C-alpha cells in the first residue's frame, strides 16, 4: 500500500543519492503530489505520453526531489534511479528536464516559466478537442515573478477551466519568510482578482486534498489552490529551517539527525 510516508522516505533516499538539493522545498509538496498521483491525475505510467493525459508541471523546479520520488513511487521508472540524483550521467538532476524520464513534462528551474508553459498546453486542448487537465505547481516565493501574473491574466482571459494552479504556500523562500521579503498577502484576493476560482486547502491533509482536488471548476474559470504547507514537513529538524533551503554538502551527523527526526504519521 503506497503512502505519503513512503514518498517522504523516498525523498530522503533521493537526497542522499546526491547528498545535495532542496529537500525542504520538496517535502512541503509530498502530500500534494501523493494525492495527485494516487487519486487525481489521469495518466498511465505505462503510457506516459498519451495525448489526452493530464499534465503535471512543477514550475518550482527546485522541488524536483519530490517529483522524482513520486514518479518512482508510482512506477514511472525504477526507484533505483533515485540513488543517482545529480550524478554525472543521471537522468535526474537538481532541476527537472522534460522527458528525461517518463512523467517529467517540463524543464523548469528558472522560476516563473511553468505556468505560461502550462497555459499553452491547457489552451491546446481547445484545438485538439482532447479532454485533459493541466496542473501547475508554483511556489509562494515564485509569485515574486511578474511572468506568473502575465500567465494568470492570460489563463483568466481564455477561461482555461482545465488549468489548476497549486500554490505551495509554505511561507518560506531562500532568504527566509516570504512575508519578510515581499509581503504578498492575501493570495486569495490576488488570485481571485486575476480571475481564478480560488480555494484554500491544508496541503498536508490527505483527505481534504482528495476531496478538493477532485472537484471540477464550478465557475468555468481556472482554479487556484492556495495549499498551506510547512517547508520541510515530516522531518522535524527541517521544518521551517531556513538553513536547509538548499544544501550542497551535508555531514554524516546532520544526516543522522534528519533521519531521526522523521515523523511517522
Amino acid at each position: 500500500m503506497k503512502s505519503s510516508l513512503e514518498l517522504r522516505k523516498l525523498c530522503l533516499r533521493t537526497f542522499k543519492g546526491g547528498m545535495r538539493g532542496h529537500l525542504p522545498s520538496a517535502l512541503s509538496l509530498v502530500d500534494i503530489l501523493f494525492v495527485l498521483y494516487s487519486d487525481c491525475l489521469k495518466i498511465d505510467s505505462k503510457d506516459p505520453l498519451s495525448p489526452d493525459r493530464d499534465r503535471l508541471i512543477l514550475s518550482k523546479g527546485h522541488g524536483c526531489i519530490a517529483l522524482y520520488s513520486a514518479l518512482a513511487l508510482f512506477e514511472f521508472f525504477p526507484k533505483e534511479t533515485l540513488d543517482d540524483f545529480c550524478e554525472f550521467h543521471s537522468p535526474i538532476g537538481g532541476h527537472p528536464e522534460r522527458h528525461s524520464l517518463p512523467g517529467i513534462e517540463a524543464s523548469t528551474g528558472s522560476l516563473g516559466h511553468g505556468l505560461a508553459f502550462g497555459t499553452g498546453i491547457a489552451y491546446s486542448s481547445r484545438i485538439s478537442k482532447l479532454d485533459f487537465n493541466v496542473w501547475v505547481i508554483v511556489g509562494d516565493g515564485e509569485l515574486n515573478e511578474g511572468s506568473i501574473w502575465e500567465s494568470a491574466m492570460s489563463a483568466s482571459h481564455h477561461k482555461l477551466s482545465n488549468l489548476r494552479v497549486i500554490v505551495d504556500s509554505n511561507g518560506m523562500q531562500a532568504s527566509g519568510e516570504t512575508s519578510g521579503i515581499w509581503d504578498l498577502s492575501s493570495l486569495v484576493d490576488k488570485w481571485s482578482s486575476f480571475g481564478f476560482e480560488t480555494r484554500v486547502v491544508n496541503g498536508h491533509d490527505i483527505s481534504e486534498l482528495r476531496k478538493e482536488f477532485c472537484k471540477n471548476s464550478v465557475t468555468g474559470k481556472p482554479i487556484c489552490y492556495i495549499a498551506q504547507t510547512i517547508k520541510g514537513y515530516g522531518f522535524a529538524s527541517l521544518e521551517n529551517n531556513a538553513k536547509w533551503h538548499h544544501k550542497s554538502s551535508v555531514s554524516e551527523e546532520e544526516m543522522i539527525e534528519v533521519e531521526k527526526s522523521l515523523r511517522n504519521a
Partner: protein
Amino acid sequence: MRNAALKTVENMVKSSDRACFIGSDLGFGTLQNLRDTHPERVLMEGIAEQQIIGFSAGISASGYFPIVHTIATFLTRRSFEQIAMDFSLQNLSGMLLGAGGGMVYAPLGPTHQAIDDFALMSSIPNLKVYAPADPIEIENLMLQSFERNELSYFRIGRGGEPNITAEFEIIGNGAVKYKTNGDTFTLITTGTLLHEALEAFTALAESGLKGSLIHIPLLNHESDTELRKLIADTENVFVFEEHIPIGGLFSHLANGIFKFIHSSITLHFSLPHQYAKNYGSQSAHRALNNIDAVGIYNTVKGVLTNAG
C-alpha cells in the same frame, strides 16, 4: 516584407491544422479575417512577451507549430530566457517573427531598434536565425522552416522591398545566394542590406571593379564548405551588416569560414556597439555608418584603389 510574412502565415494556417499564430497586440485589424475564420488557432494576446513565448512553447509541446509575432526588440530582449529555456532547451519548434529588424524603427529610439537581435538569437542552441532580403525570400524561407519543423527567428524588414534575390545563384540548400562578375573582391551581407550592397555592387562594376556579392539569409547555415570555395581565391573580403559588431554575420563567418582562410584581407562594417543617439530614418543611420550603397561603394573603391 511584413505583408508577405503575414500572407505566408495566412497560407500556413489555412493549409495546415498544426499552424497556430500568436500575436502580441499587433495593431488594429491585423489578421482580423484569419482570426474570424480560425479563432482557435489565431490569437491576439496582450502585451506580455514572456507569457506569449511560454504559452507558445506549451502549444508546441502539444504537437502544434506556433508562429509568434511582435516587435523584434521585445521578442528578443524581453523574452530571451523564455525562448532559450521554454523552446530551445525543451527541443520544441516554432517560428518567431520579429518586426522592425535593424534600424527600421529608427525614429522610435533605441527601445525599438533591433541592432542586437542576431547576437541574442544566435546564442541560443537549436535556433535558426534568418534575415531575408525581400518578400519572395521570406515566404520561401518561412515555408521551408515550417516544413523542417525548426525553431527559428526571422528578422523582418521595413516593407516595400522589391524582389531581387531571384536573380542570385543559389548555393547549397538555399541559405547562401551568390552573384559574380569578377574576382577582385567579395561583398558579403544579409537581410535587407542586400539592397544597398547590390546597388553598390552594380556601381562598382560600372566603374570597372568586378567582384562577387554573397547574401546569407540564414546566419547559422550549413554551407561553410561551399562558402569557403566561393571566397578562397578573393583577396579582399568585405562584410557589411546592420547590426552591432559582435554576434552577427561577421561573427558567424569568423567561426565558420574565416579561420580556415588565411589569404584574404577581411574588413567588417556594421553599426557601432552602442545605442543610437539620433532618431531620423533607417537610411540616415545606414549612411551615418557607411553601410548604405554610397558608403559601401566608397569603402570598397577606396580600399581597392589604395591596394592597387
